[in-house]
């Protein structure tokens, strides 16, 4: 194929007009203090350009974002996890380690049959896949908003049960983070799964 080259005029071949144009364009960018549309809601800080000044400014984390997995509590402030160990089993990188309570393990409230004696998540291994949240029958573990996970040594980044519970907070908050379209209030996991199964049955 022959590429057609535009015939340049005498002036254009001097390069000078295009150099002047280049100056114009670069000047415009140099002196433009407007921020890009991405940060339109933070337009007040005119000193910055499209770069996000990270530790001071942060992305708004969208709902449904899969950050670090934490355990949640219910309204009575009790642990929801029943130590079924499904999450430990499903976790692809084996980030979760659960010590089950054994036959006569302690529970911290009445009516509960079983709860984990220890529950550790190694944040260095976790790949934020969300399988644990998906598999948990008790809606006890959720991937929340945190994405800045730093520590000074490896041990620090293995979060134990207390830490996971305190970071996770109330389950309602976790539901709200995972509001899904077509489901009114947060996750109603089994309802949705049943619905999906029905839809599929109809489809076949």
């Amino acid at each position, binding site marked *: 194929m022959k590429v057609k080259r535009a015939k340049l005029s005498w002036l254009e071949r001097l390069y000078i007009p295009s150099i002047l144009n280049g*100056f114009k364009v*670069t000047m415009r*960018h*140099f002196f433009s203090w407007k921020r890009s549309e991405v940060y339109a809601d933070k337009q007040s800080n005119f000193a910055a*350009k*499209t770069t996000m000044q990270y530790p001071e400014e942060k992305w708004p984390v969208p709902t449904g974002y899969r950050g670090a997995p934490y355990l949640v509590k219910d309204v009575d402030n009790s642990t929801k996890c029943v130590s079924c160990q499904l999450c430990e089993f499903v976790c692809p990188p084996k980030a979760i380690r659960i010590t089950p309570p054994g036959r006569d393990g302690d529970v911290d409230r009445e009516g509960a049959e079983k709860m984990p004696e220890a529950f550790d998540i190694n944040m260095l291994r976790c790949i934020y896949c969300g399988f644990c949240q998906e598999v948990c029958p008790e809606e006890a573990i959720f991937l929340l908003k945190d994405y800045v996970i730093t520590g000074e040594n490896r041990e620090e980044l293995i979060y134990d049960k207390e830490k996971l519970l305190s970071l996770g907070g109330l389950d309602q908050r976790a539901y709200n983070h995972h509001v899904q379209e077509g489901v009114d209030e947060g996750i109603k996991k089994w309802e949705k799964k049943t619905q999906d199964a029905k839809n599929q049955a109809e489809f076949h």
Partner: protein
Amino acid sequence: MPEFITELLTNHPWLIVAIKVLGVFAVVMPMVAYSVVAERRISAFIQDRVGPNRVGIPFTNIKLLGLGQPLADGLKSFLKEDFTPGHVKRIYYWMAPAVSMTPSFIVFAVIPFGSMLGMQKMVIADLNVGILFTFGIVSLGVYGIVLAGYSANSKYPFLGGIRSSAQMISYEIAMGMSVVPVFMLAADPAWRDGLTSDWKAYLEGTGLLNLSSVVAYQSDSLFSWLIFKQPIAFWIFLISIFAETNRLPFDLPESETELVSGYNTEYSSMRFALFFMGEYAAMIAGSALMVVLFCGGWTLPFGEYFNTPAQGLVQGIIHILVFIGKIAVFLGLMIWVRWMLPRFRYDQLMNIGWKRFLPVSLANIILTAIVLWAAA
């Protein structure tokens, strides 16, 4: 000044030279460091980014708009592993960074960066063949790059080295030709008679090719600056300086997009930093040459105080600052252009060098000669 220092300096004139060398070095090195910062900041602003704005005074929270960046950069290159790949030709590989950096610093030896300070002329070596010396030294710079390309023993540096040799040779000719008219004007013995007695004393014993003499020629008024008298020569010289210092749009030896990093691909750590410093020192030297040859050197056309050799210390320092300021303007231009123009294709580069600049600069010489002859 205490007696013994005066005595020491009169008995050992080399001490004065050593002090001047140290002084120039102490000014040029920070300029190199800060032109890197300026480069990064200006490029960032042109590209709607922010650039390095974090590093300030170490161990404090004071950021100073990122002016501490050279410290961090330097520390980083010192701490990097100095890796020598197994396949390089060692001796040349070790020599190349030094060979590419030293010439750019040697150029400063003949540049008159100020008028007088105390009883001393502010030029390290007041050579009568200043400009010839500069051209000789500047053309040595290419050896560093060619050596780096050759010694690395791999394809990208090799291509970079080859490109650089061809490019430098072609642009050096245009550059040399372009300054001939400058000296045709400045080396006319007649104009020196009109100078003030200060100037006459200052130029005592210097030849007509001396760079201070070129400065004196331009000291009269704004329109005696050779940038106005010889615009074509200036244009060609400016562009050749871009090509000589491997700056965009002529950075073919490096051209990251096609040659990884060109001639310095195999270098790391301080060796790489030396190439980098060499490039920026060459930019400063080139800007200094442009200031001396075309923009009136350390003079400003604002009356006696600015355009005659200094009598006092303050005046001398102001002259030096004027010179540095003018250099900064050119550095800004060079940095700006880098983020503005795309790289030339190799054949276009050669085409411009040989088919445009060479004939135009020759024509300019002849034109100047005709004008001078007609005026005489």
